[in-house]
Every structure is written in structure tokens, then in C-alpha cells.
């Protein structure tokens, strides 16, 4: 199995969790399978269902991926009043790595392209550029801590051969051809797995 490695850059993205207490909408600090795969599927709809599988993680470059807050008040246009102000957390100056499983569909991706990722798009968030870096074999699996989020059912597709201690969460899985879907159990960052080096946190020396 090979991964296509892309560099993702964006001015600001909001990869949201659910709003908390109608006051605060946190932003996840990774690029989950559901977000990046959904965005790529939307961009390359001709790839077909199941043709694209991708995950991502934020790079640790100094000064990049800053967590910032935007306060805004959604306006109810019917009654012409503003609702309670909502604080939205977002990432600015984003630099991330996206790993796409190489297959017939994904190998046709261009060297550079734009996608729209995450939420708050009407406020200018989410426009991201992807630049192809290299194609690299997944390599021999090793034990380590996962640095991406992906559905449990997709673990094998990414070369994860064993899940030792899962850190669970849920990711949204859209039902094809509808605006609905289900939440599927997923492996989150910090899960102990045996899998490809690229999906794992760097080993501390």
C-alpha cells in the first residue's frame, strides 16, 4: 500500500466539534478522516464512492496552526435580532500533512488543487490548498500512538494491523446520496496501534 502525501495550507479553518452550551464551538486540532475525505470526495466527485480515503494531521512548525477565537452573533433574519454571541475556535495559518491512500482514482489527482474544508464557510473559512509532495510506501507497521482520527472500520484500509488500546470517539459517516448519515466509532489520536509509521506520533528520543 502507498500513501500520496500532500501539504495542506489554509489561512483559517474550523473543523468543528458540536457547539458547547450554545456559547462555544471548539475546533479539533487534527484533520479527521471524515473532514478530509468528505472534502476530497466533494472536489473529485467522479472518483466514486469508497474511492478516496484520507487522513491528516497538523504540522508542528513554530508559528503555524495557531488556535484563535472568533466571536460572532448569528442573526435571526426573521425577527431581525442577534442571538447570543458564539465563540468559535479556529486554526489560523494552517500547515498540515494529508495522507491519501493511493489507488486508481487518487493517482489522478492534480499536483496542486483547492478544496473547501470544515465549517464556517460563509465567513470565509475553509479554503485550503493541497500540494503534492511525494508517493511513499506505507512501510512496515510498528507499534505506536496514532496521530490521526479515522473510523474503526477503515483501520485495516490504512494498514493498521492491530489496535492495542483504542481511544474512541465518533466520526460522521454520510449516507450516500442523502444529507443524512450515522456516527461511526472511530480511533482517535493517542490510540495504541500497530500500523504504518506515517500515521503514528514521532517516537520520543
Amino acid at each position, binding site marked *: 500500500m502507498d500513501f500520496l502525501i500532500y501539504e495542506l495550507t489554509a489561512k483559517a479553518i474550523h473543523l468543528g*466539534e*458540536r*457547539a*458547547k*452550551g*450554545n*456559547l*462555544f464551538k*471548539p475546533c479539533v486540532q487534527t484533520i479527521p478522516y471524515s473532514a478530509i475525505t468528505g472534502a476530497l470526495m466533494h472536489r473529485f466527485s467522479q472518483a466514486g464512492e469508497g474511492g478516496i480515503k484520507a487522513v491528516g494531521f497538523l504540522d508542528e512548525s513554530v508559528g503555524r496552526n495557531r488556535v484563535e477565537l472568533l466571536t460572532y452573533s448569528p442573526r435571526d433574519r426573521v425577527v431581525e435580532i442577534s442571538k*447570543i454571541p458564539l*465563540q468559535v475556535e479556529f486554526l489560523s495559518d494552517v500547515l498540515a500533512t494529508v495522507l491519501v491512500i493511493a489507488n486508481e482514482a487518487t493517482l489522478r489527482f492534480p499536483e496542486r488543487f483547492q478544496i473547501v474544508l470544515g465549517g464556517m464557510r460563509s465567513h470565509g473559512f475553509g479554503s485550503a490548498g493541497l500540494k503534492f509532495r511525494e508517493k511513499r510506501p506505507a512501510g512496515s507497521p510498528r507499534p505506536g500512538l496514532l496521530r490521526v482520527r479515522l473510523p*474503526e472500520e477503515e483501520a485495516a484500509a490504512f494498514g493498521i494491523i492491530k489496535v*492495542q*488500546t*483504542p*481511544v*474512541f*470517539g*465518533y466520526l*460522521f*459517516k454520510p449516507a450516500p446520496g442523502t444529507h*443524512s*448519515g*450515522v*456516527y*461511526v*466509532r472511530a480511533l482517535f489520536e493517542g490510540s*495504541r496501534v500497530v500500523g504504518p509509521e506515517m500515521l503514528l506520533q514521532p517516537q520520543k528520543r
Partner: protein
Amino acid sequence: MPRDLVPELHDVLKLTTLKHNFSDFDPYRSFAPSTPTWRGVLQHHCNKEFPAYPSDRDTFLLHAADGLAANFSRHAQSIQGEAEWTVHRLWNPRRVCDDERLSRPDQIREMLEFLGTDPSFAEFYSRYERVFRARSEDARPGMNITTLETHVRLAGRFYRFLRQASTLAVTDEEARTAADHGVQGVGDLLKRKCQEWRLHLLHCRVRLLTNPFRARDLNIFAALQEFLAEVNGTLGDNVLFSSTEELLLYSDTLDVLTSLRQLAAPKGIVLEVCRDLQRADMFSPNFRKPEFDILYPVLDASLAPPLCEICQMKQATRVWPDDYMALKGAEAEVSGGGRDLLCETCFSIRSRPSQLQKLAHWDEWAAGNVIWIRFGLDFFRLRTILGKLYLDYLRSFDPHTPEEKASVRFSLIAEFQHDYESCLADMRNRIIQKFGGERVEQILPDLFCIQAQAGTDAFVVLRCFLDSMNGFFPAFLGDVGSPLKVSLAYAGVKHPFFEIWRHWQAQEDELEIVAVGHGRLQLELRHLEKFLRLADHPFRQSALHNLAEISRVSQQLAELRFRSAEEKGERETFARLKEFLPLGLTFDGILTLAKLARG
């Protein structure tokens, strides 16, 4: 009918100045009780220096429990010197106790007579608490690092555990047959059993699934306390250490994980478990081959929307506040707008009546600020630091003591826990004394919210912490480092606590101050005293204000101004602020300090 053997009373002779091996006991022989507990006192050793040895299952298990609870490995003894009858606290060597042992014949007779009434441990302890707290478990030099109280309580736990442990069986017949072969027979049986017996050591880190997003969600901390009380209640004899963040347990089977999961799940709590399987004769707080588990509630493979907005781990089946109002009728009190979709667990936690009455009141005080402060503890760091302190102590007797001699045992951890809890209580009292009860909301024994009138109140809280640390753990303010962690946040009363909480989860520094909207500073606790002394100086307010205001436009410009300090009025203030730089503060930290110090 006599009471069953009370294991905690096996070392009562250590409360006196009599020799532990009964060699000078003859004058008191007529006062010796004839109870199972006294049999434990007589027979819990297996050594030719002692007149008796374990003769049945109970005394055999007591002998085994005594070894597990000892503050040293029975196999590694060598230091010679004068006996130290009082305890030397590694973290507080200045705290010296008087030798409280019973020395007068009438005192010893009275104790034996009382023991003859077959008291419970609680009854006996209430009468001899001072001696239990002052007497070292082992008086040999270098070994006097735990109190007798800690040892006997721990031995009691191990004894009850060994009696009930399904996989560590010793039959009465085995024990009696061994006793027929004398000291050698019992010693051989213990050696064989301790090599056969396997114990699981489990370190559990507590994680909250129900994060505190609204004030009512702070009920999760009440649920956390209930959980800890239930663990200490139902699994009390398996608990070796507990704080609000961590638990250390042991068991002979992994069924304990099921029990923990059953207690944690309804409270919205997940446990991250690190476990190690150890031989009983090598049982120690070191995880040699750790394995990991996370104890979640039952999680479905897929969930239909909507997802619970708090935990995001269950389907949301409740609507807040609609369902709450329908449930409570006219009694329902709901503040704040908006609707939340919640799972049953998060809904039940939010629906509890809040114990935090003051905080609810402050929420209406829109102009105000609060200080959130949490005192955390890291068990693994604690173990390492105690090892270093113990090595230093042993090397004060013999500079060539090898590192492996300074092994940290469970009794030392338990001893620490006793002082840790006292330290937290002391901190609470100091904070209440400084701010007044009306301005302090205690959320957990180690988590407080304080109504603040100025940013400098943060320094007052830290002074309380420092004073308590000086009283209980002065060694942790030295170069050896601290297993205790302080997290302080200065924020508007309406600022979501969740953000602060989330930030605290990732804190690695010993002390971190977050001034929400202004910045943060990190500090090692060894510098805290100097930091507070410097922070106490009156700063020129206009200089601090200028610095803070310039930083709003450009942090680089503010740093330039700070470094050059050309304005006459700023020179002295900035020079004083520069004294913080050797303490490891960055410019960001200095700026945060300046913003707090200006009020």
C-alpha cells in the same frame, strides 16, 4: 465471642519502649490478652529471634501482609547505627516529632489491659493516635521514613485482601503443616507462595467524558467525588493511592477492571489504565512491562444522529432544558439560553441540583473576575522524586549507597498521601482565611473558584499555596522538582470554564498562570518564593499599563520597549520586571505578570 483478628493491631508492641521480639516482656506476661488479635501480635514474624511464628492461616496471611506493607524490602538490609524512633519525612525533614512511645510500666499495662477488651482498630487508634503518628514503622537508620500508622493500615488492607483473594489461596492445613516444621517450614511456604502469587498493579488516570460546558455541568465534579468514594468504599482494600486525578490499585484478577467500569460509566468517567503483572515477592510501584486499557462505558459501533453535544460518545436522547423542565415542573431552575441535545448520562449530571450555590450567584455579577485554581499531582513523577529524596537520605548515612537501595514502596506512597490530604486541607483553610468563605467556592478538595477583585489576588492565592507547601512539602520547592502541579486561571466570571479545563489537561509545567485574554506564564515551583517576593513590589502602574497597551498593537514593539526602557518612569519598573527573567520567565510571561500586577 472474640472479635476476628484485627490486622492493624499486629505491631502494638511498637507503641511501647519494649523490644519488638518480646525479650523484655516477662514483667507484663500476666497482662497479655488471649484474643485472636494478640495471637497476631505474637505470631506475625517468622524469625528465630522471635518467640513465636505463624501457626495458622490467619497469622500466616498476617505475616505475608506485614511484608507487603513494609517500607523496605525484607531482602535488603544493611545500614547500621542508632535507632530512630520517630519518623523522618523525606519531603519535610524539618518536621520532627517527639518520641511518644509508652515507656512507663503503668502506661504499658494500661495499653495491654485495653487490648484485652478486644477493641476494634478505630477504638484503639482513637486512644493512641499520637503514638501511631509519631513512631516510625522501622527504627533502623535510613528505614524510619514511614509512620507506624501508615504501615499498620496498609498491612490491614493487604491482610483482608489476601484472605479474600480467589487466586492466592492458602489453606489452614497448609499453614498448620508448615508450622509443624517450625520457622523453616513457614518461611519456605511464604517464599513459595510469594513466588507463585501474581498481583496486578493498576494505575488509573481519571478522564471526564462529561466536560463542564455550563455552570450546571460542574456537577460532574460532585459525580467524580462520589465515584472516588465508591471506589474507596467497595474496593477500599485494593486501593493503594488515590487523588481526584489518579488511582493506584492492585488485585489478583482483572475482574477489578469490570468493577471500576461499572462504577465509572454512570458518572460520565473514563479511566485510562496502565497495568503490570508482578510477583508478590517483587511487588512494587514500578511498572516493568506496562499494558494499557481505557475503560469506556459500552460504546455502540454506530449511532444515529444526533450525537450528545457534551460527551460526543452517545446518542442524544434528551433536550435541555425542555426535558428537564418537564421532569421538574415548577421546581425547575434554568439559567442561560439555548437548547442542548444530550445523552442520558450527561443529562442526568446536568439535572442534579448544583452544590455550588455561590458560583451560580457570581454568574450574575457580570463585571467581575474569578480565579480558578487546581492543585494537581502526577503519581509517576511523585515516585521518581521520592526515590531521589530517599537516596539522598540514605546517602546521608553512607555516601556510597547504591541507587537501587532507595526503592520506593507502597507504604511511602501511602505516607505521602496522608500529608498530601493534610496539605490540601491546609491550603483550603488559608484561602478561606484570606478571601473569606463567601468568596471561595470549593469544587473539589484540590479545585477552587475564588471571586477576584484584582489580578493581584492571583499572587495572594499562590502565597497560600507556598505557605502550605513550606509547611508540608518544603523539599518539593527545591531543585529535586515537584510532583505537585498548580494551574491558575484568572478569567471573567462568564468565561467558559471548559476552555480553562481543557487547557489544564495538557499542562506540563509545574506552575502555569493563565490570564484569559492576556497571556500565560510558566514557572518551576523552586522559583515561586522569589517570584512572589518580586511580584509583591509596588510597580509603577503607568509603566505596566503602557506595556500592556502597546502589546495589544504589537508584541514585538512591547518587547523592544521593555528591553530598551528609555522612558524615565519605566526604567525602574522594567528593571524590576527584568529580575523575573532568571526565573525562567519569557517575555510573554513578563507581560502576563505585568497585566496581572496592574490590577
